């Protein structure tokens, strides 16, 4: 009866270099070096980093929590949409979870493409979409020991927003 579940195994040749949530330290430089073939004229790497203050308050650290299994699939969907829509060659995205101090890298998005405009477009798309759809939350922890979960965005509901391969569940 029920089916669903986005396809698990995909070839490396679909342009998805990496799409994962991880507890490991992130380094955009590493991805930057790995991206790009001899036919790519543009590579962009975006790093999201933890700031030491937010909304006027000093932040000691940021704790990220995710629904890991779903998050990896959502990241992969977003990356595949971006590649399909913009025609870039390859994308890698990693989001970190756990407790991160100021200047730690929470997110890396790397894009390679023949030309720069689609590269910028794909990079911005991945970030916008993961902010809308990635099941991941952050709690700010302050110097005085208090903390609070940050307000987020309500994810879009329904298969039309869930990626390029909508799958109806068994009914």
């Amino acid at each position, binding site marked *: 009866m029920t089916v669903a579940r986005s396809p698990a195994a995909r070839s490396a040749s679909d342009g998805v270099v990496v799409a994962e949530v991880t507890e490991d330290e992130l380094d955009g430089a590493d991805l930057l070096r790995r991206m790009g073939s001899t036919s790519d004229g543009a590579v962009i790497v975006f790093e999201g980093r933890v700031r030491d203050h937010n909304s006027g308050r000093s932040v000691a650290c940021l704790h990220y929590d995710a629904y890991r299994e779903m998050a990896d699939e959502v990241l992969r969907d977003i990356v595949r949409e971006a590649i399909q829509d913009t025609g870039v060659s390859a994308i890698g995205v990693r989001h970190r979870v756990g407790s991160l101090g100021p200047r730690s890298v929470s997110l890396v998005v790397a894009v390679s493409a023949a030309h720069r405009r689609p590269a910028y477009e794909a990079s911005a798309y991945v970030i916008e979409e993961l902010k809308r759809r*990635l099941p991941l939350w952050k709690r700010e922890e302050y110097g005085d020991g208090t903390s609070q979960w940050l307000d987020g965005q309500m994810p879009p509901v329904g298969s039309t927003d869930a990626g390029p391969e909508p799958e109806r569940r068994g009914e």
Partner: protein
Amino acid sequence: MTGRFEVDVFLFGRHRELAGAAVISVELAAGGTVADLRRTLSGHPSLGSAVEGSAVALNRRYEPDDSPVVAGDEVAVIPPVAGG
């Protein structure tokens, strides 16, 4: 399509703190939908209204209120997301 069944519901972020648990068990009637799940959760002593402003994912896909929930589904309540 008779009788009732239990599903485990994953909680995250704020919800996990409110409920004091990462998973709670919810009983639904056969043929129940996401809307039924929400109704049941809204009666939870500590979660309560927090569920209203949240999405529901079945088998790792966001689903609308009229989607059916069946035994064995991976069910999660997703508070507003804040990646980046």
